[in-house]
């Protein structure tokens, strides 16, 4: 475990250093970049992606994926809209409903993955389509024509996306969720179990870990984070468009992967995905301020993703080679005695 944390910290430290470099470059290039307002914009614009990335890292550490978070944002946002403008429920009811619906839909993904033994990709892909369709079906903006361009006016709901002095509230929520996720992953049995299952599911099962419970919890956390993001966005827009959150799953996956969460499972932390989200955001904003054309910005963002995943893959391969080499040198006889399941996944998170 200690090795894992050290490895994660060094990986996050490397990324943080790279991010600092990017910040310096843009600050030197553009006087408009190094303004308080611009940094506020960065925090406002990408904290919800950071929140989604924190949530997304749980399924990915389990060697899974959650493609449904964008659509969960849609359903949760529309739930808030309908509760507030059709049933005139108080803001607090809408907030609680949002968090419960988010976590429940995430948990349902986990349940289907565990019970039906379908791959997370397929389950969450189906959920992505189902919940987006549901969003349109329950849209108060479509069902009630007079609500088509009616804004949410509940004070508490609109308060969610404001700021505490110069600090945007969305950023505060992200920091709190980040701390909670860090504590959960680094200090609790559930966290250790998540790494174990992600590193080697069969070995974890044989070690007596309740794999099903771990998986359902991880997907519920991802859904919960989508619920929080939906609240922020609904507050920001003062409405909930039917396509709210479309494509955000890819931004969250990109941020998590750039942040060092391995798609092979078992490896990843909390700080990395947060930095990943802001790194992508900084590059977009920096390029906009530098008058880079919009489509070139998207190309550069794509290149960064490929670079990060490529580097992650390269690191994995290097680690495996290193491990095989060490085993061969140190314990040539004992190696043959290891359980076959261990041999299937030499790059287990507990030892990497």
């Amino acid at each position: 475990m200690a090795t894992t944390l050290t490895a994660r910290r060094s990986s996050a430290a490397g990324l943080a250093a790279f991010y600092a470099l990017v910040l310096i470059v843009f600050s030197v290039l553009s006087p408009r970049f190094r303004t308080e307002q611009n940094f506020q914009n960065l925090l406002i614009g990408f904290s919800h992606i950071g929140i989604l990335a924190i949530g997304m890292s749980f399924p990915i550490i389990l060697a899974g994926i959650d493609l449904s978070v964008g659509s969960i944002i849609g359903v949760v946002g529309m739930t808030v809209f309908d509760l507030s403008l059709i049933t005139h429920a108080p803001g607090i009811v809408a907030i609680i409903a949002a968090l419960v619906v988010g976590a429940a839909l995430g948990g349902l993904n986990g349940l289907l993955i565990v019970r039906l033994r379908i791959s997370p990709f397929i389950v969450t892909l189906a959920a992505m389509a189902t919940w987006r369709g549901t969003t349109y079906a329950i849209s108060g903006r479509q069902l009630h024509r007079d609500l088509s361009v009616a804004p949410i006016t509940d004070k508490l709901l609109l308060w969610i996306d404001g700021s505490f002095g110069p600090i945007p509230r969305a950023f505060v929520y992200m920091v709190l969720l980040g701390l909670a996720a860090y504590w959960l992953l680094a200090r609790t049995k559930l966290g250790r179990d998540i790494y174990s299952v992600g590193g080697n599911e069969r070995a974890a099962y044989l070690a007596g870990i309740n794999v099903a419970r771990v998986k359902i919890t991880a997907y519920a956390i991802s859904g919960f984070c989508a619920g929080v993001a939906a609240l922020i966005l609904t507050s920001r827009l003062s409405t909930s468009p039917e396509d709210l959150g479309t494509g955000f799953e890819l931004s969250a996956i990109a941020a998590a992967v750039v942040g060092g969460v391995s798609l092979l499972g078992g490896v990843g932390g909390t700080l990395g995905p947060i930095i990943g989200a802001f790194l992508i955001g900084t590059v977009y904003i920096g390029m906009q301020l530098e008058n880079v054309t919009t489509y070139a910005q998207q190309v550069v963002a794509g290149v960064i993703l490929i670079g990060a995943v490529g580097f992650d893959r390269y690191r994995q391969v290097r680690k495996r080679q290193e491990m095989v080499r060490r085993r061969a040198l140190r314990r040539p006889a004992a190696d043959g005695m290891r359980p076959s399941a261990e041999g299937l996944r030499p790059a287990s998170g507990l030892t990497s």
Partner: protein
Amino acid sequence: MTATDDSPATGFDRRRFLGVSATIGAAALVSPLLGACTSKSKTAAKPAAASGGTAKSHYKMVWIQIQPQATSTAWGQGLQEIAAQQKNIDFQLLDGQNSAATQINLMNTAIAGGVDVIFLQPADSVGLAPSIKKAKAAGIPVITLNIDATETHAAHVEMNHYYGAQDIAAKMGAAIGGSGDVVIINAPPGITIRDLRTNGFVDGMKAKYPNVKIAADQNANWDRKTAGDVFSAMWAANPNIKGVYGVNDDMALGVVDVAKAKGILSKLTIFGNDGEKAALTSIEAGELTGTQYTDVWQQGRFAASAGIVLASGGVSAKDVPDQGHLLMPYSILTKDNVATIPASARW
């Protein structure tokens, strides 16, 4: 005369601006096909001296579109054409990637980047309202194209959706013999254009052809393929449909695709909206029945001119008390008159 050799406080080519205005005004006068064209600019902006604003030698303007589409692209070209002529304007195209949240980020960065004017096609009329408010607070005039926002701003330039849709209803009602079922392939909710075009069509039909029944109204998300799928389902449920109104050309052309494949094109009267080149070609081929046409390049040029007037005059958005509202002239095109649109005005 160029902007740079003009006086700094009025660094704007008046002749060019008046030229654009005159073109539109002349079009409104000479074309017998033009429907109700009203231009009621209530904006009474204070000049730089009165508002305390300062005119600059160089300006930054951004065009935030929803996504790359025929209409958005043509607006961008019209805007850029006029901006380029001024020789002292940095013009930047920004793509909203079909997301209100992304557009808000782009707005925020544009405001922080100190732009002088924002041209906006809001992905959501309500969702972008808080951002427009923020831009106004920073003194930046926002000019919207076709899709209005629920927050008032400097100006809105649209192709007159309500009256256009009324005229389409009248043409369609006549074409189907004054009775029968028609359907609407609609835009997503949350944007003013959907309500204006739908209400115009419904009101127009009710007024002129009360026996025509609007049997279905479904969202196809502006998309050609989705529109085809939506229409297929409508046709399966009700094979008595005689008319289809796609609230943009792409969606109407999606219905044409499906109608051709099913061999039912001759039974249908299909109208689109906007007047893009592909729609005009389809009308000439005898497929699409008609569309509401506006010269979208001209619309972009006009918006650019208005933006340049505000920026070069040093007018702060805070000093624009009422939103200017400019309705572009339009014509309802069918096979009979599509040839009147010259190649130079086919966007």
